[in-house]
């Protein structure tokens, strides 16, 4: 459970830092009257959707970290047999990186007020994300053909489970991306859609980050790192 404790420590640090800006040592019973004397202590000024996305990503991060915690506890049992990493996984990773780059491109285009660039970026990002999903399905197929079934070893079970959860997370993102693309299609002003494009971009970068961490875990790259952390913590 050390992964999740570490994750929560990061969240707690962020929350603690924010709370420290909120004058929690004020004596409200003495502060009758002033409403604007302490800028920054009122309601947050960012759009609700952006704060909402931040909170949601913290929840999603928590979910993935818990899976990672479970993974790192289960992999120490005697019956764990790591499965070979299909080469296709590297191609998929490249495609997901491209998807994230395309979304970043769309976001920058939105800031430049270039609506065609936004459209191009969104479509390219979406297409790359769909390619990634198809690629992941092919990876599953290759593993099944090679005899690595979901129940035959816990390493396999985790592989299917984690890639499935990440895939679902991506599909949720694709729904939002589709909606944003439709809005861009209809609108003429970039300012109307700038926030949506920005939120999609943040979501995509998060997706990529989660995938890179999962990839490190599933391919065993991070084993040494996990080992070091475990020794440090115990």
């Amino acid at each position, binding site marked *: 459970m050390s992964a999740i404790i570490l994750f929560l420590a990061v*969240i707690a640090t962020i929350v603690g830092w924010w709370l420290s800006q909120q004058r929690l040592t004020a004596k*409200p019973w003495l502060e009758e009257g002033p409403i*604007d004397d302490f800028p*920054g*202590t009122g*309601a947050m000024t960012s759009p609700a*959707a952006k*704060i909402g996305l931040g909170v949601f990503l913290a929840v999603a991060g928590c*979910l993935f970290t818990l899976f990672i915690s479970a993974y790192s506890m289960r992999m120490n049992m005697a019956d764990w047999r790591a499965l070979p990493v299909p080469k296709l996984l590297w191609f998929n990773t490249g495609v997901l990186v491209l998807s994230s780059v395309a979304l970043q491109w769309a976001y920058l285009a939105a800031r430049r007020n270039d609506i065609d660039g936004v459209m191009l970026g969104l479509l390219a990002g979406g297409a790359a994300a769909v390619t990634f999903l198809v690629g992941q399905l092919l990876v599953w197929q290759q593993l099944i053909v090679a005899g690595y079934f979901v129940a035959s070893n816990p390493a396999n079970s985790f592989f299917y489970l984690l890639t499935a959860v990440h895939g679902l997370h991506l599909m949720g993102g694709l729904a939002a991306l589709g909606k944003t693309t439709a809005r861009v299609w209809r609108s003429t002003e970039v300012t109307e859609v700038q926030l949506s494009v920005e939120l999609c971009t943040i979501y995509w970068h998060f997706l990529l980050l989660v995938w890179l961490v999962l990839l490190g875990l599933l391919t065993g790259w991070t084993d040494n790192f996990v080992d070091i952390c475990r020794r440090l913590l115990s």
Partner: protein
Amino acid sequence: MVDIPYDAIAGVPPAEVPDVELYHPRSWWTRYVFSQDAKVIAVQYALTASAIGLVALVLSWMMRLQLGFPGTFSFIDPNQYLQFITMHGMIMVIYLLTALFLGGFGNYLIPLMVGARDMVFPYVNMLSYWVYLLAVLVLASTFFVPGGPTGAGWTLYPPQAILSGTPGQDWGIILMMASLILFIIGFTMGGLNYVVTTLQARARGMTLMRLPLTVWGIFTATVMALLAFPALFVASVMMLFDRALGTSFFMPSLVEMGTLSKYGGGSPLLFQHLFWFFGHPEVYIVALPAFGIVSDLISTHARKNIFGYRMMVWAIVAIGALSFVVWAHHMYVSGMYPYFGFFFATTTLIIAIPTAIKVYNWVLTLWRGDIHLTVPMLFALAFIITFVNGGLTGLFLGNVVVDVPLSDTMFVVAHFHMVMGVAPILVVLGAIYHWYPKVTGRMLNDPLGKFHFWVTFLGAYMIFFPMHYLGLLGVPRRYYELGEAAFIPPSAHSLNAFISVVALTVGFAQMVFLFNLAWSLFKGKLAGGNPWRATTLEWQTPETPPGHGNWGKDLPVVYRWAYDYSVPGAKEDFIPQNQPPATPSARGALP
């Protein structure tokens, strides 16, 4: 989405929000059924939670009938008994208490108390309720599937939860997992609303330190729930894989009904870690809203400012943080690494400090207050006593050496019912008596309320106090029948019968309460806008019940904290939060 445009220079929301920003219902269906108004969603949440809670109440009567009079009722067999305890626990903890405090009170009170027109994502908020309803329906459907609901105990520990021999092994356990997953998805949608609304949609002047403690409690509990429920989600998904796909995340090698099962190598302990990583914060997810609400009830009905407001806020935050590092105190007898027990016993005792601070502050708020023994106040006072009682036995069970002999006895059942069953329910009831006039515009009947209070309060003690004694005798929990055990004297059996009779009586008192709710809706005394003469914003709405958009044309502006009761020199014994100061020189009162 109800996004409020900001004054970029001052960094504060303007006093007026254009009407176009609000969602408007256009038909009866979108006004009362598929409504996006947080107040309607709150009532929907509360009614659904109460309905499924009644099912859990009836299940508890069944259990008590069996325990009090074993062998008398042929319609309760051992399997059903296990199913009853499982469903009773799961429904009460998750589908009733969590949903009622956060979905019910959270939805109703957050926008009103922070001075917002609605939640920030009304559509997602509506979805949250419908997914919750679906989760409840899936859960309820398990009573009708082949094999019935799961009888694995509310903790659903593998391996027994998915092995043959445990009731509900066919469909019950699968649907239970599905229902939990749905609940968590629905809750996350609602939780995003509660958190972001508190962060982003507060009225002008409503700093964090001017928030009523109710909002602090619900807000912190929601943040905790958003971070803790994923653990249950992960555990449920992995268990579903084990049950449906034959994986071995949690399942060790074992012989099932004489044959070697397909499972092997899994770790039941891993499930327990995940379950309690959710399960312990869950206790505080239920308790923190109760703490917040009870603070407001006590302050309002004692006509006195809350004692140590800052300390109360810090304690809520500290409890929220600490509750994530105590989970393994539920696992002292699980066979985990023994030194963990030492660590978790220490953190468990540390969390008692902020909790005790809160109790002292409630008592000091009462001290020399102008205590009005209204029904909400009676419930609030009862909560303090009950919470202290339940908390003290928590100190017993938090220590490894005391916990080991008491594990799996009735002492544990008595402890957690006192601390997270009876105590939060007393707050829920008190809160309903307190806010019913705002929700419906009418007062609940007072004599019926007092009857309801005394039967519930005294009854709860007659049920759960003797149960501690039974636990100390060694009477185990979850047993269908005690049989002839040498260490269980005949008096224990008569005590069980006594508890059962009282439990049925307390159950009857809840019917009186339901009658009161229905009767007062039409015949109750008209309440007016602020019957308790309270300071917080929800009592200052232009209409009662509050209309669509809550505030009429102008949003409220907040000039003071939520506890200006009996201020020396003031004309009235309360000053609403949105009342401007009498003289501008009050600004000089800054520290």
